[in-house]
């Protein structure tokens, strides 16, 4: 199927465009004295605004712009941080319509009853969604269950259920969105040798030039990977460590801090970009779009492939409880649009994957598809979502193909049982 055909196909698939067509026909028909129901619907829906709230790495204004154009009603974006999202969802649930949350955050908000489960029959491409989310499998194999694997939180018993259901039902906790597998970022020009293990994050060679992220739930996972790789600690379940394990891990972080190992702890993704681009650090926790951002500033950053595996994470779009009637219809239209291809193509350029990869392909050139999903050498320059060059022809994406990366997810971002303890212990790390 050619790209053009595919594009046409995916457009055809969107019910919205069908309705738009119907509205146009309906408009003509008005002149003829016949008023079709879809016309009324299409006119009412124009006044609807869907608010999408999420974190900066996936809540991007270009997405809202494109969605509004394609859908005929307004989609707006509100950017916040992890803490902000969870608090807004709980305290002002009507202030947003669609929450773009991380997998582990569902464990905090689902019990609060602020979201309604997604009716799977209304998501056109549900059966095309990656089985990482829907079945807990990838490429025929079980995905790691250490940490909050997406499958574990994927389903609920009913629309209003406030707990998760073990195994598939007709109601999804959220609609799977973007996801990726993270690793360490390094400056190869300043290090000058290959980096192959998480243990390097603790290597005294990089004293004063290393950084770790200051978001406890995620930073601890990077630390656990490094602890185990360096042989300082073994874990029963890296995705749900005991108090003793958390304590030992953070004590090590403190010891390193006192020895001047950490140049900084970063709080937001742009801080990590600045640390790397300014040469303050040469090895650190990093997120994929930060790598793209540093590269587009002309600095060489490698998102290294480490032998112990990757730290997986994922997002989904949750529907807030207050949505009903026409507004709920519009929200479902938006969710279906999200999977229809444009979004997948756009987000691929910052290194993320979309839950329905095949529609994204028609919005990517062969070069881009081969580079981001296929793990092949770029045949031409690769650009960021905003058009800056990030990779030259001949370069390869770190970590290999889509299949290779997800076969190597070792742990998932999570909200562990001992989260309360983790947070007070992490505070000790901050104040040490």
């Amino acid at each position: 199927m050619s790209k053009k055909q595919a594009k046409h196909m995916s457009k055809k698939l969107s019910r919205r465009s069908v309705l738009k067509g119907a509205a146009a026909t309906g408009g003509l028909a008005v002149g003829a004295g016949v008023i079709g129901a879809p016309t009324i619907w299409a006119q009412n829906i124009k006044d609807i605004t869907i608010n999408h709230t999420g974190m900066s790495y996936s809540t991007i204004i270009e997405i809202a712009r494109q969605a509004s154009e394609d859908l005929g009603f307004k989609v707006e974006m509100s950017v916040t941080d992890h803490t902000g999202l969870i608090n807004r969802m709980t305290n002002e649930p009507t202030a947003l319509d669609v929450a773009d949350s991380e997998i582990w955050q569902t464990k905090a908000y689902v019990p609060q009853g602020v979201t309604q489960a997604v009716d799977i029959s209304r998501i056109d491409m549900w059966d095309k969604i990656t089985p990482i989310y829907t079945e807990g499998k990838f490429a025929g194999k079980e995905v790691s269950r250490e940490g909050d694997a997406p499958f574990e939180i994927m389903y609920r018993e009913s629309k209003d259920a406030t707990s998760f259901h073990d195994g598939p039902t007709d109601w999804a906790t959220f609609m799977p969105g973007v996801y990726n597998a993270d690793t360490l970022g390094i400056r190869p020009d300043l290090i000058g040798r290959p980096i192959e293990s998480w243990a390097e994050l603790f290597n005294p060679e990089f004293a004063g030039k290393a950084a770790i992220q200051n978001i406890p739930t995620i930073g601890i996972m990077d630390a656990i990977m490094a602890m185990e790789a360096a042989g300082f600690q073994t874990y029963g379940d890296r995705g749900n460590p005991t108090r003793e394990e958390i304590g030992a891990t953070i004590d090590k972080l403190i010891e390193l801090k006192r020895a001047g190992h950490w140049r900084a702890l970063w709080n937001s993704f742009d801080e990590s970009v600045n640390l790397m681009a300014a040469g303050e650090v040469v090895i650190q926790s990093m997120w994929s779009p930060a790598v793209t951002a540093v590269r587009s500033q002309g600095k060489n950053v490698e998102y290294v492939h480490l032998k112990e595996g990757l730290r997986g994470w994922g997002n989904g779009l949750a529907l807030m409880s207050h949505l009903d009637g026409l507004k709920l219809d519009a929200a479902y239209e938006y969710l279906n649009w999200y999977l229809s291809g444009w979004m997948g193509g756009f987000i691929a350029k910052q290194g993320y994957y979309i839950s329905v990869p095949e529609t994204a392909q028609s919005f990517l050139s062969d070069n881009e598809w081969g580079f981001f999903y296929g793990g092949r050498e770029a045949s031409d320059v690769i650009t960021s979502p905003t058009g800056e060059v990030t990779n030259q022809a001949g370069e390869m994406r770190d970590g290999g193909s889509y299949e290779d990366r997800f076969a190597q997810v070792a742990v998932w971002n999570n909200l562990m049982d001992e989260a309360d303890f983790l947070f007070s212990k992490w505070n000790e790390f901050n104040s040490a």
Partner: protein
Amino acid sequence: MKSRNLIPYLQAAPLAIVLFLFLAAPLALVLVVSVFRNKLFVGLVPAFTFENYFSILTNAVNYQLYLSTLKFTVIVLAVTMVLGFWIAYFLVFHVRSLLIAIGLFLVCTVPFWTSNIIRMISWKPLLGREGLVNTALINSGVIDQPILWLLFSDFTVVLSYVHLFTLFMIVPIFNSMARIDKSLVEAAVDAGASRWKVIWNVIVPLCKTGIGLGSVFVVTLVMSDFFVVAVMSGGLSGSVSSGVFFDLGILNYPRAAANSIVLLAIVVLIAAGILRVVDVRKELTG
């Protein structure tokens, strides 16, 4: 007769209502939640328990955090007080034209035309490993390794606080200094006082209210901050409020609320202490 008695109450009512709605009521709510219990993955459980306070007061980390926050407060207070006093002194007693004095005073507010964040972030290209200062020092041969404590250290935090908060000291001191009757200074000089004696025995005592008010501003701003510390120390220093922030991230409202109440009590104690030393009423009515 009766209605006349009501008038002062009516006059005070708007402010009282605002204070009740936006200060007393939310505070009462925080107080209530602080004795609730939090169950992870479930949420708030109404209860009457002091375990949140207990866990805060028995955790050695919190004492460290208070100590570190107090250390910043004392240093910043001392620096802004000295700076604020002399800048105000210069504006009031050395600039002869009132117009120029007001003009210069406005210049002091120029940094406030941009946002807090920009004023903080703009230090980074200046002080970083490859920043302007280090590059200049290395190129001129003064040092051969970059000075790392310029950025992401206690020094940077204090520098930003001083940059951000000195104005809050200048304004009240300027205000009380501008009211000093110049003939008092003349009288002191005629009586044989030296310049320093005039400052110490006449001007400083008359500025006490301004210094006191400025101190309250600076203390409350520094004690409640977590953002400047997090950004400028590169996350290497904590603050009392950062604990509250972390707890909010997992919806542990009871512990966050208890921590806020403890912090509030301490800030109120300090502010009360300052106001005991200086009589602010004099400032407002005098």
